[in-house]
């Protein structure tokens, strides 16, 4: 299956080189996708903050540090949002 990947929030500029689509085996889960992504990013010297919010197709599932298990479907959108503050 293929899912779309969106990075947003703080330091989004550092993740521009990461493919917007991720190919995963059928039956892949959110955990599989996050592992693939973090391995990909580590190869580019990028480590996402553990406080990143994680959502799949508009549904919030927690943070990188702690999130719900979630099966993925072809066409899902995985959003990783590095929290922003700023006054």
């Amino acid at each position, binding site marked *: 299956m293929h899912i779309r990947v*969106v990075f947003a*929030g703080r330091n*989004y500029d550092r993740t521009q080189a990461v493919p917007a689509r991720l190919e995963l085996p059928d039956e892949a889960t959110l955990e599989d996708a996050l592992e693939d992504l973090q391995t990909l990013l580590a190869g580019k010297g990028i480590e996402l903050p553990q*406080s990143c919010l994680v959502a799949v197709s508009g*549904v*919030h599932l927690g943070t990188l540090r702690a999130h*719900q298990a979630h099966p993925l479907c072809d066409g899902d959108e995985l959003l990783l949002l590095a929290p*922003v503050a*700023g*006054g």
Partner: protein
Amino acid sequence: MLLSDLSGDELARYARQIGPGALSAQGQTRLKHAAALVSRAGGMGGPAALALVMAGIGRLVFAHGGNLDSPDLNRQVLGSEEGLGKPRVVCFSETLRAMNRFVEIEAIDHEPDDDEALALARRVQVVLSCAPTFAERLRLNRAAVEAGVPLIDAAQWGMTGTLIVVDPGRTACLQCLYPVVPEFEEMFPVVGAISMAVGSLAALEAIKILAGSGTPNFGRLLLIDGFQGRWSQIELRRDPDCRCCGARKPRQ
């Protein structure tokens, strides 16, 4: 509460926002009898305060410590060259008073601590969190949840903005999202246009809540990614074990 609570001058001032798809006359009257806390007077707090004052909120409590500096002026819609070096919230409050004589402005020249934030939250009907640090945001969140008033959290980075609207005891609070305080970056890049957009949307949510008009965006995170040209919304999950709001019952 009667329509006659609005004077002829007030009805004339707000004539363009009273009508279908906007506020009812009763809603405008409710807004007149309402108060909001905006903390702080920054890139988002400034336009949020301005929009609330122009819309006719009854009382605005505006909190910020520190002076206006030159790098602030790329995004501080209430600032000016004349205000450089002066206490920010004092200057901005004067501008707000000049914008609308029907609104009471209460300026607080420092960031409230835990006790003061709670006391302030108990004196208003909505809290707008426009603070630079997560520690302050979570403090305002705790105060709003404890006081049982909605919280609107506006945040920004670069060309990105987020908006979260919390109905304590019913929808996810900031602590549900961030059980561990996220990393904080003191000097972050920001384009003033996104500050104004997010601050204005925060005010719109407050106006809807206070006036009883429209549908507040409770329980969702609005993400405006101006850099990548993408707007999206996330349905937020409330943490039933949240140490801030987990035991909180929905407000009446």
